[in-house]
């Protein structure tokens, strides 16, 4: 019985994945801003310019490395492509209050959102942080990447430049 169920499930997954295109729209979930205001993810916008959504946490070392690496180049990226980065913290109530002083302490200029019970993380199927999404001008998620290796930010930027020019990115 269980074998049957499992095979059906596998079939289901395959069936669905075939039907699936890689691009998708963001799920519609409520998170919070750093000052506690409700923020719906449908408000993630950037006037037709590319958007980066980066899932992170104050206790996640590679996440902080990635966001720190981008922070050094963020001004240039913004001037050249108009890209905007939303840093979605999955810190829960144990470290949520630490996010604001942490972000300021680092001197980051990102738009920071708090996903304290991982509702957004779950809705977009993130397993572990860091997990980064790239969204094109039309609001489609066109690329995602998990983990961080030194130098990933430059590869991400190559893709952002393409998006800013209205080109497709091929992965």
């Amino acid at each position, binding site marked *: 019985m269980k074998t049957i169920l499992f095979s059906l499930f596998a079939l289901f997954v395959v069936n669905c994945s075939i039907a699936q295109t890689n691009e998708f729209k963001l*799920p519609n979930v409520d998170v919070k801003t750093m000052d*506690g205001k409700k923020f719906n993810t449908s408000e993630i916008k950037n006037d037709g310019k590319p958007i980066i959504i980066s899932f992170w946490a104050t206790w996640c070392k590679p996440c902080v490395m990635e966001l720190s690496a981008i922070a050094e180049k963020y001004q240039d990226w913004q001037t050249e492509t108009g890209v905007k980065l939303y840093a979605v913290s999955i810190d829960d109530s144990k470290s949520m209050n630490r996010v604001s002083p942490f972000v300021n302490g680092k001197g980051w200029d990102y738009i920071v959102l708090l996903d304290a019970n991982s509702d957004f993380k779950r809705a977009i199927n993130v397993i572990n942080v860091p997990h980064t999404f790239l969204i094109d001008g039309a609001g489609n998620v066109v690329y995602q990447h*998990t983990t961080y*290796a030194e130098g990933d930010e430059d*590869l991400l930027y190559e893709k952002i430049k393409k998006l800013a020019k209205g080109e497709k990115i091929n992965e």
Partner: protein
Amino acid sequence: MRFKNIFIPVFILFSIYIQAQTNNEGQLHGNFQVDMQTYKEDSLISAPKIPEKMLLNAYANLTYSKGNFTAGIRYEAYMNTLSGYDSRYNGNGIPYRFLTYKADELEVTAGSFYDQFGNGLILRAYEEKGLGYDNAFDGVRVKYQIYKGVSVKGLVGKQRFFFDKGPGIVRGVDGEINTNELLKFMSESKTQIILGGSFVSKYQADKDPLYKLPENVGAWAARMNITRGAINFNTEYAYKINDPSADNLYIYKPGEALLISTSFSKKGFGVLLNAKRVDNMAFRSNRNAGLIDLNINYLPILTKSYTYSFLNFYPYATQSNGEMGGGAEVMYKFKKSTLLGGKYGTNISINFSRLNSLDKTAPSDTSVIGISGTLGYQSDFFTPGDELYFQDFNIEINKKFSKRFSGNFIYQNLIYNSDALRKDHKQTYVFGNTGIADMLYKINDKNAIHIELGALFTKQDMGNWIMLQAEYSIAPKWFFSLSDQYNYGNEDKDLQLHYYTAAIAYAKGANRIQIGYGRQRQGIMCVGGVCRSVPASNGFILALSSSF
């Protein structure tokens, strides 16, 4: 079984339906993860013999959304549960499925869901795969935005208990008001005030032969968040009526908890102050449950969380029966081109936290502390107890030396109450001093080498340790790592062992595969103050994950 028979055709239809739908707006997503490990008996580190030789944890999530509807399921398989996870998970099935309808102001969910009221002091359902923690509700939930700045949610459900459900029924409502959005005179104010309140009640029949137990246990909480410029003030207080349980050894004292957190921050500078008091605040949908089973609420820890392994040897775990303490952290960035900032700037963070027991006195002249069937004890709200549970002082410096070379350096001084926190009666306290030097050298745009050195000095427990970890990464796909933790200071010469690990990971987009070998010490794994013990193990590991 009856349920499953109906389920199959529905399942297939659903799948075909989805395939037919793809030209429309419908979207299907999901993820899956598989963790597998082989086990070899290793008597030196007391890694037990595992009869299955190989164990596996796996799950897959699927979410389908179209228009106002979202539906999802999760399949989980534990064949059998990886060593260290609760073996009551053994088996497989679909413990999680839901349907949500969301229009502008209204959201209705039927089936499984996670939720949190405020900081979670009286209600939080969540999952933490690393712990095997999942207390999802199975029931119904309604969220409604009544007016601009005013939202409420209500839920009723039973909680997940492995592949079954707990006996208690949980009912809860939560409301939140953003005064700046609601009140005209506040809309222009520089001060933002958000208020919230919640009430939760659980029902569990009383079948106790001895005591008359409350079948309905109510709890309420009130919270406030004030922000003005660089200052943020956050507080929540929770109260629970008498709830005799296995946690508090069946005493009739009400419970309470208070959290206060204040921060001040502007660019380049942040300060955070925390205080908390927890008194008899375990809250479960089965009063006889233990371990991490069927928690309705979540009592956050306020100590700093780390990713470095030596800083996680002696982690703090929330003491739901009673604790009192606080912490402070200062974060500062020395600007570029200053003496301490150097060419690239330097980040420094100093953190201190300390937690004590509660001050407890006998409830009456004729009684002693903690007797079942009595009020248990009295406690003065503002006086901490004499017993120290945990203290952590640490300094972290993050510095970029050149375009290629950067480092993260940590020093930690720790006092850990081993007797109270892990029921280790051999010794009361572990005093530790730990240093970490984590250095990164960028060879070129894509290749980097990461070296982590660590040393932990303690006269107690297993004695001194040193470690070395080297990781080589080729962006964006490859990671190679080797590490050795050496317990050179163990009192027992035969136990001065090396704990090696080796791993190769490959990541492409949202897919990741990792193969490794490791000898793992016996320890405690904690996420946010919720802990499980991890037995020693020796074997190969395969981890696969994908999001789509």
